């Protein structure tokens, strides 16, 4: 599909494999196994069958008529919220779970922020009969408590991470520390297009099913390609998935929406491509929110899934090459989009996905009369503890 990353795992100058030497053999093996897995008809058949009969794919593309009318924008929603477990995260978890099994691994570990990836991994572990441990920052366990219970119900061990900011980045650190010890029997099922090569490539490929479907669906529904394709960017997996097949189509503009949080002030947002600069973190050279010395800065977003100081290397590459534009949406704008979609269309979106829609609504003049495809990456049930407070329910 795409020539990048190159054989060393680089998208232009971004990417790479900045991990302890102990893990390099494992990463090489994953890359090799993945290349076989891709060409193995039996495995591909199993994956496709699970995506349809288990995950519920293809997901619909929905024309949001009332919302469109209200804002004078043609808004189409790719309904990843309808994937089993409630978000796009399962697309990748199923793929990597099968890959792990293919490699003979018996245990899955994962990091999670919003808990959606943790739930997806726990689900796949149950489905494939594998052991599962999910690392989650203490702060995130509190604000996404429904998902913690779901993971436990599914048989996963949820390990609270109390170091650093107690959010997604610290959960990744904890998972990496576990993996260096356990790499012989354990697969680290990374939940976004982040980390060392080959993860950014593998996760993107598994998520590209989103645009593989959407590109045909939108032609069916609108008769033409959309003017804009828009997705929220935490690590960047749902965006990578919906960008993949639209990237080379002329006239389609790609927009990634980062968490603008409270303000552009240090520590009050998670918008690395907007306010950060390149650095090396979690296995790759990529944009990062960091101090002058290079220590990682605290970040904020109302949405736990976007509350991450770095971003997948391919997005850094898209950003510098102008292949996609990266913008921000604040906590408040996301919350009002959350309410808008719920009240106007009867769809309760995840707070992450609300950022994509929030940018469109907050900048409606830019999109007036245009066809806009928004990736509705997940549903909002998990966000009840937050919105209960915000809306005084």
């Amino acid at each position, binding site marked *: 599909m795409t020539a990048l990353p190159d054989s060393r795992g680089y998208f232009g100058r971004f990417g790479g494999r900045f991990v*302890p030497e102990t893990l390099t053999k494992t990463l090489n093996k994953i890359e090799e196994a993945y290349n076989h897995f891709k060409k193995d008809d039996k495995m591909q058949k199993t994956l496709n069958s699970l995506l349809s009969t288990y995950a519920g794919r293809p997901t619909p593309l929905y024309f949001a008529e009332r919302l469109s009318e209200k804002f004078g924008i043609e808004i189409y929603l790719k309904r990843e919220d309808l994937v089993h477990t409630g978000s796009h995260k399962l697309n990748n978890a199923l793929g990597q779970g099968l890959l792990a099994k293919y490699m003979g691994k018996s245990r899955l570990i994962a990091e999670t922020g919003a808990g959606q990836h943790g739930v997806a991994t726990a689900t796949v572990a149950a489905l494939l009969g594998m052991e599962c441990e999910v690392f989650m920052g203490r702060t995130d366990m509190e604000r996404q408590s429904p998902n913690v219970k779901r993971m436990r119900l599914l048989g996963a061990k949820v390990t609270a991470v109390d170091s650093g900011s107690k959010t997604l*980045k610290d959960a990744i650190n904890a998972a990496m520390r576990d993996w260096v010890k356990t790499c012989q029997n354990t697969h680290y099922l990374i939940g976004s297009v982040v980390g060392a090569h080959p993860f950014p490539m593998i996760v993107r490929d598994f998520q590209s099913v989103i645009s593989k479907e959407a590109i045909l669906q939108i032609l069916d529904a609108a008769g033409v390609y959309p003017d804009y394709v828009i997705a929220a960017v935490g690590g960047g997996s749902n965006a990578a998935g919906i960008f993949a097949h639209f990237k080379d189509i002329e006239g389609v503009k790609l927009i990634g929406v980062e968490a603008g949080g409270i303000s552009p002030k240090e520590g009050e947002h998670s918008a690395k491509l907007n306010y950060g600069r390149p650095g090396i973190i979690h296995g790759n050279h990529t944009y990062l929110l960091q101090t002058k010395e290079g220590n990682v800065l605290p970040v904020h977003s109302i949405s736990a899934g976007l509350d991450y100081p770095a971003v997948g290397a391919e997005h850094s590459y898209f950003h510098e090459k102008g292949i996609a534009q990266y913008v921000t949406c604040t906590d408040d704008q996301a919350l009002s989009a959350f309410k808008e979609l719920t009240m106007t269309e009867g769809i309760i979106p995840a707070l992450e996905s609300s950022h994509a829609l929030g940018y469109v609504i907050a900048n409606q003049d830019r999109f007036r009369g245009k066809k806009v495809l928004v990736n509705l990456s997940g549903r909002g049930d998990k966000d009840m503890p937050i919105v209960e407070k915000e809306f005084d329910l």
Partner: protein
Amino acid sequence: MKNKYNGFYLMGNYPDRETFIKSALEGLRYFDFIEVGIPFSDPIADGEVISDAAQFMIEKNEGFAEISKSIEYIREHSDKSKDIYLMTYSNLIYNMNMKDFNDFCTGVNIKGLILPDVPFCEQSFIRQLNLDDNIALINFLTPESTQESLEEITSEAKGFIYFISMRGITGSKFTMEDETVSILKKATSLSNVPVVTGFGIKSKEDAKMALNYSDGFITGTALIEALKEVGFDSFKSKLREFFE
């Protein structure tokens, strides 16, 4: 037989500048080299003890700027045959003003950088930041190293080879599986530079076991623990314990 080449790790300026300098100088009476840690916010190769020490320094707002002054003092007051290495993570090096950093390293004769998140395959990336050629990038071998990487790494290594005793992070319990010992034996026979074993070495027994198969040992967590819990006196007795 190569001479033994033993090293110890201290977090720079931990728990305070004075204790750090005193500990470094004391340690260099026994050890051949010191690794000075520069604190990074997300030290994925470190266990709780060293991670906490890093966090403590970051909260104190002390980093390379302050630690480099202490290193200058240590260089001046220690035997010139003793080597100094810096141990940190790649992002701090990436963010350095390379000219100033090279000048500093040359000035105090920093032998090399130990960057646990930079495997052999990414060394060229760090080199391309215009790091002075005289500063070695220390290579790692591990229980996971393949024959191919053993050959490649031993043929290119400078300074010494850091042999990581186990699959794990700093501060773990020391073990050396039979398979690991056989990798280590191959490494020492192939390498022209000392192959030094580290990770998990906390006692004289651990060190002895490492020295049976390698050209030296490295200890860190045990010393930081001593400094954290009691202070310099306990550090001093821990040091002696290794060499009694």
